[in-house]
C-alpha cells in the first residue's frame, strides 16, 4: 500500500449531499403554503452553497496509509488530523448504497475499540470498488496479520447456512420482539374494527381507523421491511479466525471480524419463533456497528433449532462448552411471587382510578349509547389482561432463567416471552455486579449484571435470581483468570 496521500472518490460529495437535499425538499413540501418568491430565493441557493462547501471540504481532505496508521487530514476552517493506528482498529466494513452503485464505488467504515464511540465509525471513506477492496484487504492484513486473508472477502466461499426468501421473510416479521409484534397486531385489529363499524353503521367511510393503520405500519411493517432489505441474500462463512458476513438487497453490506473480537454470542427466540421451533444467532462484536440498520450482527437468521446448533458449532465453536444449566433456586419463587403481588396491587389501583374516571367521563356524555357505552369497561378489561399477563410472567420467570458456568465461558438464559441464551467469555467482562434487593437479600439471592463492550458501546447483561455465592463465582473467576495468566491479553487484542 502506498503511503502517498489520496482523496476519496468525488461521489462522496453526492453521498453527503443526498440526505441533506432530501431534508430540504421535505421542508419545502411541508411549508408549500408559505411559498413566495422571497422564500424560494432563500431556499434555492442552499443546495448550491452546500455542494460548493462539500466540494471544498472534499478537495481539502486527504487520506494516507502509513506503515503504522491511517491518517485522515482536513485543511478547512477547522483543521483536523486524525491518526488511527492499525492496532486500535476493531473492524473495517464495506457497504454500497444507491450513490455508490451509480458511481461504482464502495464506502469503507473504520471502527476502533472504544465503549464511547463503538457505534460511530471513526472514519468513513469512499473509493472506487477495486481500490476500496484493496484498502480493506490491506487494513485486514495489518489488523489480523497476513494469514487472516488467505481467502479474499469477496471470494465465492460457500455459506455456512443456506438462507432462502422464506427464512428472510419469517425472520423479518417474527424475529421482532413479541411486544412490538403484539402491539402492531393490536393496532391492526383496532383499525379493522373501526373500519368495519364505520361501514356497517353509517355505510359511508370517512377515514376511520387510518391512524391505527398507520401506527401498525410504523410499528410492525416498516421495521420488518427494513430487516427484509437488510438481511436479504445473507451469506456467512468463516475462514481461519475470521467470520465474513455479506447481505443486503439494495445496499450490499460486507463485514468481517476476527472471532477474538466477539465478546458474547446470543441465541434468541421470540414467542412466535418458538411456535415455529426456530431461533437465531446474534454476536456482540467490538466496534462493528457500521450503519444505523445493523444493531448487532446476526450470524444466522431464524432457522430450526437443529440447524442453529450446527451453525453455532461451525461458526463460533469457541463459544461452545459443556453447559450444565443451574435453575433458579426455589427461594426465588418467593421473590418473584412477592414482586407479582406488588405489581397486582399497583395494577388494581390504576384500574380502579381509571374506571372511576371513565365512568365520570361517560356519565357527562348523555348521548352515548350502544357499543360506545361499553368503553366504560375498557380499564377493567385492560387491567384484567395486565394482571393475567403479570401472573403468567411471574410463573414462567421462575422456570426460564438459568445460569451455567464453565472454565472460560458462562451463560445466562434470560427472558420470559422473548428468550435468549447469552454465552459470555470471562475474559471480556469489564465490570461485574451482584445486585441484591431487600427481598432477595432475605433468601441469600441476588442478580448478576456484567458489563461488556458491544457493537453499540457498553452493554449490561443481567441474570435471573441465584444464590449470591454462585454469582460471586463469576467475578472471582474473572479475577482468577487474570491472576493466574489464563487470560491472554494478546489473544484478546489480536
Amino acid at each position, binding site marked *: 500500500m502506498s503511503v502517498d496521500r489520496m482523496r476519496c472518490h468525488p461521489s462522496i460529495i453526492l453521498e453527503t449531499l443526498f440526505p441533506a437535499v432530501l431534508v430540504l425538499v421535505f421542508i419545502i413540501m411541508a411549508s408549500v403554503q408559505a411559498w413566495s418568491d422571497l422564500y424560494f430565493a432563500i431556499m434555492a441557493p442552499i443546495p448550491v452553497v452546500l455542494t460548493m462547501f462539500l466540494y471544498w471540504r472534499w478537495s481539502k481532505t486527504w487520506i494516507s496509509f502509513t506503515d503504522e496508521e491511517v491518517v485522515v487530514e482536513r485543511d478547512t476552517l477547522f483543521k483536523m488530523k486524525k491518526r488511527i493506528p492499525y492496532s486500535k482498529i476493531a473492524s473495517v466494513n464495506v457497504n454500497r448504497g444507491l450513490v455508490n452503485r451509480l458511481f461504482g464505488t464502495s464506502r469503507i467504515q473504520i471502527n476502533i475499540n*472504544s*465503549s464511547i464511540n463503538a457505534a460511530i465509525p471513526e472514519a468513513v471513506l469512499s473509493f472506487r470498488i477495486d481500490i476500496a477492496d484493496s484498502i480493506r484487504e490491506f487494513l485486514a492484513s495489518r489488523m489480523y496479520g497476513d494469514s487472516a486473508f488467505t481467502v479474499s472477502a469477496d471470494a465465492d466461499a460457500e455459506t455456512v447456512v443456506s438462507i432462502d426468501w422464506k427464512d428472510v421473510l419469517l425472520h423479518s416479521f417474527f424475529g421482532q420482539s413479541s411486544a412490538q409484534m403484539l402491539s402492531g397486531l393490536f393496532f391492526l385489529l383496532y383499525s379493522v374494527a373501526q373500519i368495519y363499524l364505520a361501514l356497517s353503521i353509517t355505510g359511508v367511510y370517512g377515514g376511520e381507523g387510518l391512524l391505527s393503520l398507520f401506527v401498525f405500519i410504523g410499528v410492525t411493517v416498516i421495521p420488518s421491511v427494513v430487516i427484509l432489505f437488510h438481511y436479504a441474500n445473507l451469506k456467512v462463512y468463516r475462514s481461519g479466525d475470521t467470520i465474513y458476513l455479506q447481505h443486503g438487497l439494495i445496499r450490499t453490506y460486507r463485514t468481517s471480524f476476527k472471532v477474538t473480537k466477539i465478546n458474547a454470542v446470543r441465541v434468541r427466540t421470540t414467542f412466535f419463533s418458538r411456535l415455529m421451533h426456530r431461533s437465531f444467532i446474534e454476536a456482540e462484536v467490538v466496534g462493528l456497528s457500521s450503519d444505523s440498520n445493523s444493531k448487532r450482527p446476526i450470524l444466522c437468521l431464524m432457522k430450526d433449532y437443529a440447524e442453529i446448533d450446527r451453525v453455532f458449532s461451525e461458526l463460533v465453536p469457541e463459544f461452545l462448552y459443556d453447559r450444565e444449566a443451574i435453575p433458579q433456586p426455589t427461594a426465588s419463587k418467593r421473590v418473584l411471587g412477592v414482586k407479582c403481588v406488588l405489581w397486582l396491587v399497583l395494577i388494581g389501583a390504576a384500574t380502579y382510578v381509571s374506571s372511576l374516571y371513565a365512568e365520570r367521563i361517560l356519565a357527562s356524555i348523555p348521548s352515548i349509547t350502544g357499543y360506545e357505552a361499553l368503553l366504560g369497561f375498557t380499564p377493567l378489561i385492560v387491567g384484567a389482561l395486565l394482571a393475567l399477563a403479570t401472573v403468567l410472567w411471574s410463573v414462567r420467570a421462575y422456570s426460564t432463567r438459568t445460569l451455567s458456568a464453565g472454565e472460560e465461558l458462562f451463560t445466562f438464559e434470560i427472558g420470559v416471552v422473548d428468550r435468549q441464551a447469552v454465552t459470555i467469555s470471562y475474559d471480556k467482562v469489564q*465490570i461485574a*455486579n451482584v*445486585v*441484591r434487593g431487600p427481598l432477595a437479600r432475605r433468601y441469600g439471592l441476588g442478580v448478576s449484571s*456484567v458489563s461488556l463492550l458491544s457493537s453499540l458501546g457498553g452493554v449490561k447483561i443481567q441474570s435471573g435470581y441465584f444464590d449470591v455465592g454462585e454469582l460471586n463465582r463469576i467475578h472471582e473467576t474473572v479475577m482468577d483468570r487474570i491472576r493466574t495468566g489464563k487470560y491472554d491479553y494478546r489473544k484478546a487484542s489480536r
Partner: protein
Amino acid sequence: MIRGVRPYIRITFLSNLKHHRNMRTSKEFEINEKGVTAEGFKTLNRKCLSSMYLWNVIAMAVLLLSVFLIYRFINMPWIDMDLLFTITVAALVLLAAYFVIGPMVFFARYRYRMTDDRIDILRGIFIIRHTVIPIERVHQVEVSRGPINNMFGLANVNITTAGGMAIIEYLEFPVAEEISDRLNDIVVNILKERE
C-alpha cells in the same frame, strides 16, 4: 462555619448526627476499630452526609418551587385538582423522608476496597450493589469535583472501562488523588510489562 484559608468550607450541617452510627447494619458492613470491615473495605468520611444533605435541600427547594409554579400558573380543568394535590403532597412527604433518611443509610452502607488487582464498591440504600472492577480492564481514571462536593473537600473517582464506568463517590480529595495515582501507576505498570 468558615475557617480561614482552608481549601474548602467546613459545614457541620447534620454531619455530626451520631445516631446513624447505631443504625442496624449487617456483618458485611460492620467496621472494626481500624475503620475497615473484616474483608478490608473502607468507609466514607462523614463529610459526605453534609454534601448529600445540602444537595437534597437544593433539590427539594427546586421541586417545591416547580410544584408551586405549576399549581399557580397552569390551569388543568380536565384533572381532579384535589386528588392531584393529595397525591403531590403524599409524594413530597415520601420524598422528604427519603431525603432525610437516604443519606444516613447510604453512608452506613457504602464501602470500598482497592487491592493490587481489583476495586470493589459496595453500596445501596434499598438495593445493595457489589461492583467489581478488575484493574486490568481500566482505561481511564479521573478525579471529579462538583461545586457541592468541592465545598466539603470531597471528590469522586471515575473509573472507565471498555464496558462502562464505575464511580467511587464522596472521597476526601487527598484520598481520591491517592486512589487515582495508585490506579494509574498499576495500569501503566501493566502496560509496560506487556511491551
